[in-house]
């Protein structure tokens, strides 16, 4: 067997963290390699938060503790949006399988109520999140959004430091994490600061695809370390049964306009 073939097999036997979204797991050849830090990126209204929450719920249903760190939206509002899911159970919240923490509360506890963090404060923040993950036995984490956190870091150096240290700390604890990244529809890159996308183990791009006046919600796995995967574009729908995906049809030829 060639070295390249052995490498492919080795990649595909890494333990997987199944997202619970059948078609996405299929695209990823079984799920996200456990411990990976993934950037879920896209413009507003493309389904990033919904997909991330579903990832946590399926984990909790399978007995894995999940933590949602919310920077932009109060968790009560998020919870209200989750309840219409057929598979959501309130006892997951009551039992602590699913925990929602508003980042401003964490900032306040750490004395980080400020507009810009120093390098030491970045370390304090990553250490605190990692410690929390360890104490709570969290196996799945969502940070919504990493863009908002990075906004307070300002420099490329601090952003790199934050994403690297957080990813490393979480991976050591066997925690698979989704970092939600907000970009503009016109952006030609996968993250606002350009740093996050280079450091993340994977990038899942969510967007809108316009075809002859129809606007379709799309998902594309651009990068995923530790597994072979499809790089094709899929169309998705958010339903009470969760996110469903089908391949984007190409028979109509060109003329589509991705954003």
């Amino acid at each position, binding site marked *: 067997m060639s070295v390249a073939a052995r490498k492919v097999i080795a990649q595909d036997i890494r333990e997987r963290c199944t997202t619970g979204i059948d078609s996405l797991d299929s695209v990823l050849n079984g799920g996200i390699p456990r411990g990976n830090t993934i950037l879920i990126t896209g413009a507003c209204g493309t389904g990033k938060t919904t997909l991330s929450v579903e990832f946590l719920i399926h984990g909790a249903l399978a007995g894995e503790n999940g933590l949602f760190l919310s920077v932009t939206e109060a968790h009560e509002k998020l919870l209200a949006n989750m309840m219409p899911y057929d598979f959501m159970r309130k006892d997951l919240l009551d039992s602590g399988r699913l925990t929602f923490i508003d980042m401003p509360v964490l900032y306040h506890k750490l004395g980080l109520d400020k507009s810009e963090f120093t390098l030491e404060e970045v370390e304090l923040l990553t250490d605190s999140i990692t410690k929390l993950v360890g104490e709570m036995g969290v196996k799945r984490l969502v940070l919504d959004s990493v863009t908002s956190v990075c906004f307070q870091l300002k420099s490329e150096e601090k952003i790199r430091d934050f994403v690297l240290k957080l990813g490393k700390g979480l991976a050591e604890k066997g925690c698979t994490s989704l970092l939600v990244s907000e970009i503009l529809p016109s952006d030609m890159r996968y993250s606002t600061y350009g740093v996050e996308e280079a450091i993340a183990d994977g990038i899942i791009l969510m967007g809108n695809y316009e*075809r*002859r006046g*129809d606007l*379709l919600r799309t998902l594309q796995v651009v990068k995923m370390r530790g597994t072979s995967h499809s790089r094709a574009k899929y*169309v*998705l*729908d958010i*339903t009470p*049964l969760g996110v*469903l*995906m*089908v*391949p*984007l*049809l*190409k*028979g*109509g*030829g060109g003329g589509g306009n991705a954003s």
Partner: protein
Amino acid sequence: MGVQDAVTSKLAEVPAGTSLALQVSIPVYLDVIKGIIDNYGARSRVSIIYVTSSIPSRSILSAFEVLEINSDHVSFVDCVTHTMVSAVEKGKNIYLVESPTMLENLMLKVEFLTRKLSGGKVLVLLDSLNSLCIHNSIGIVSEFLHIMVNNLRAKGVPSVILMVQEHGTEEVKNMLNVCDEMMVLDEGTAK
């Protein structure tokens, strides 16, 4: 054998996951629909996912009422109603797709319903291939049909793909080759 009985007995004998192409002439169109919905679906307790790109679901339901066809077991995926200028009235078991050009969303609604109804027997009826071709290129409809039929086949869900003979071109007929079986239903005959 009458058209209704021919369709009913064919559906009863095909293995799970079979896709059946029906070339139907206009005079027997309603008989065929009655055979699928009433004689087969209602009596065999099979949930029908009725994908309509020809007539709004409300109009089909009105016709069912006149013909005294029970429709409790029918869920509609309707990609016609939204294209009408009048106000959209959404009913129970009606899932609207904005436009017949949004073929992926049509597949997603079928996927949703097959999952939702997975506890019992399900059949997907596509009415019709001709009308989808009014709004889409042959290439994209072929791709859509290929993916949907194979998806349903893999899940063991039977499907019926309907083509109205009088409106069918050679290209549309060729598309039906993706199906496992074919029936031609004319006035008084079933082949």
